[in-house]
């Protein structure tokens, strides 16, 4: 049953972007596109061959594949409730964070490889925001490892029990930080705007401007995959009851659906932050992770107020 996580994440990734688009259309009073439209787009792109600029090297060509593979690898360490992922070892959350970073590193290299001033700008921004978001993620995961005294995702999640008010606070805050980290990692509002057509304001979108065909399909599908990966993490935070497996699976899809709707709603009723304010937005997440850290210290009676 170790393959279960991978299958569930792959299934959720198929409808995730469609649900976000549907939500955004619904709340702005527009007719929504077919929820399966992203699937059709990926399929259309996947059948096309890629075109490479003469000015690019092999880095540009392997970047999308490495980026996609890194996300698949990261998914392997994530458990589904009490079912282990395909991989599980001590310290696998560090592996999780850095295998994703490796993918991003190659994507950034690929963008720089084109020599375009736009892509250079986008790569610069993406590197900065990834750098800034790292402390938030690590303080969060580190705090959880400290509370549960384990360092693999599977052990952390199975050992986590919500019983005191402080632990509920930690669970809530962690879910919030994870939602926000997912928004940033997937280049959504308020850091980035996936719908913009203006290169000068783009972060992630401008980095993939020169990719085409199968490569582009991979990069676009990778976004959906990343989203459902974070959805799975959030689900793992919220579970705490031993349920019959089909119910649990149903609950999982419910969580993914609500997560997608939530992202659609978060994006609909606000403007994007100014680019120069983005670091401040991300620092707030780090601050919240520090709150989680102190909450964890209180839980363990190592720190009293």
């Amino acid at each position, binding site marked *: 049953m170790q393959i279960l996580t991978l299958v569930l994440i792959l299934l959720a990734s198929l409808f995730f972007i469609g649900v976000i688009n549907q939500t*955004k259309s619904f*709340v*702005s*009073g*527009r007719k929504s596109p077919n929820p399966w439209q992203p699937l059709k787009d990926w399929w259309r792109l996947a059948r096309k061959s890629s075109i490479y600029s003469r000015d690019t090297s092999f880095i540009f060509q392997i970047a999308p594949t490495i980026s996609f593979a890194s996300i698949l690898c990261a998914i392997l360490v994530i458990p589904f409730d009490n079912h282990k992922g395909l991989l599980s070892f001590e310290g696998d959350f560090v592996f999780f964070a850095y295998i994703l970073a490796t993918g991003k590193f190659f994507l950034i290299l690929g963008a720089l490889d084109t020599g375009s*001033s*736009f892509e*250079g*700008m986008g790569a610069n921004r993406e590197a900065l925001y990834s750098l800034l978001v790292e402390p938030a993620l690590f303080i969060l995961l580190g705090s959880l490892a400290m509370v549960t005294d384990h360092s693999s995702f599977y052990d952390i999640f199975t050992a986590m029990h919500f019983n005191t008010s402080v632990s509920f606070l930690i669970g809530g805050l962690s879910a919030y930080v994870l939602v926000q980290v997912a928004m940033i990692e997937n280049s959504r*509002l*308020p850091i980035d*705007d996936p*719908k*913009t*057509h*203006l*290169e*000068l*304001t783009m972060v992630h979108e401008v980095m993939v401007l020169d990719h085409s065909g199968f490569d582009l399909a991979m990069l676009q599908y990778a976004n959906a995959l990343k989203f459902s990966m974070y959805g799975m993490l959030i689900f793992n935070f919220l579970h705490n009851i031993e349920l019959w497996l089909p119910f649990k699976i149903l609950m999982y899809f419910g969580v993914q659906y609500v997560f997608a709707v939530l992202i659609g709603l978060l*994006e*609909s*009723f*606000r*403007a*994007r*932050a*100014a*680019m*120069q*304010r983005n670091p401040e937005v991300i620092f707030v997440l780090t601050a919240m992770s520090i709150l989680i850290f102190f909450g964890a210290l209180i839980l363990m009676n190592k720190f009293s107020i």
Partner: protein
Amino acid sequence: MDTRISPNASFHTDAVKLTLLQSSGAVPLEAIPVLDYADFYDLLVERLANPECHCLTYYGFPWRNEIRCLACIADDTHHTVEVYAYALPKSDNLRLEAISEKIPAMHIFERELAENFGIDFFGHPWLKPVRLAWNRSDLSQTLRNYPFYAIDSESLHEVGVGPIHAGVIEPGHFRFICNGEEILHLEIQLGYQHRGVEHLFVQHKKLTQRTVLAESIAGDTAVGHTWAFAQVMEALMHLQPDETTELNRTLALELERMAIHTGDMSALFVDVAYQLGSAVLGVLRTPLINFFQQWCGNRFAKGLVRVGYSPYPLQPALAEQLDKMLIAYKARYLQMMEHALSLPSVQARFEKNGEVSLAQMQTIGAVGMAARMAGLARDIRISHPFGNFRQSPIATHLKEGGDVWARAHLRHDEILTSMQYLRDHLPKLQPAVQNIPTSYPALPAEHFALALTEGWRGEICHCAVTDQHGEIAHYKVKDPSMHNWLALALACRNLDISDFPVNNKSFNLSYCGFDL
């Protein structure tokens, strides 16, 4: 039309006859005294030093064996337009002292003269090509060897945007010199859409052809430009359109202003990724634009303005329909805008973004919205009233701050004022019939005519000169964008490069109106 002896003793020549016009008018070309360039220079520098005066247009055209140059100065205090002229021999090495040195706002006109006739204005900061017109004097100047401004530095980088726009609107090239994310300098290069509009006015002799041409100068300002053209023709033909025609044109101009401003507000929200605002205002723009379809058969009000008459006079029944639509619009519009403009995330993006000062706008001679958002009162509807604005004036709005916030708020205020003006005047419409003139009088020989209107972007100025046979010998169009593109470049100084698109949209200047 009226000529008078200048009362101003400080003018150089003893008795310079000033040619004065209202918002539109025609005079025999010989009534405009041809000055020496030295006198012309002194007069212009003196007049333009007055903040109440600004240059509407300054251009040259071949006249007999010489180049005749005309400058039209608007005097906002006396509600007049003064016309000055000088003549140059056709020669290869013309050198004149640049007025731009003292009055920077003249830079664009002198660049245009230099491009078209090869005049070397010494003292001009930079005589680079304006639009690379096909009939420019030096054909070796091309887009390929365009003299871009460059800063030689290891730590700076250049970002070139365009000429193909990401949203495939109109082409223009923007070159940024950046220090990281900060723009140090923005250079805007246009001309990709040069169609030779001014030449086509001369080439096509039929009035309908010319009217359709005027409608196509800038597709989003069809009423503004066509009305200016109609006024030029009417001034030359001594036609006085009846009150219904004037009222119809005025209402169309204000409805156009409302529709475009609403669409622009929607686009501003798109650029800061505020989805709800952009979706709602996009929806609200549609009935405004579509009303023109019912009124005249074209969503962009093409066909609504014709020389001397109103082909589709707005009937009371349709006017009532418009009134109802405006009531419905107002409720939804205010609900959305009150929410949107008080939203912290929107405020954070608009406020202090792309600031320009009143002094800067005064210096570069900004007109229309670009002037009013920085506190510079320039509105032809007030200073040189035309159409129905003569009988019933409209309120104009001034903003301070000169940032995206001021530009958004100015649009907001103008939408509400135009709506009120429309609603006040719709009940005054009487059932009317098409009053098509059977024939038009011939144009008088050797006349100069000028007309001004205030389109939604700002002041539009059209000028025509007829030859000895009464044919149009030269036609000149000036879109407000001619003055205002520099305002965008100034707004972008020391701005974050990611804030450029929202600034560009907040000015929303015309590419084709500039390129002609």
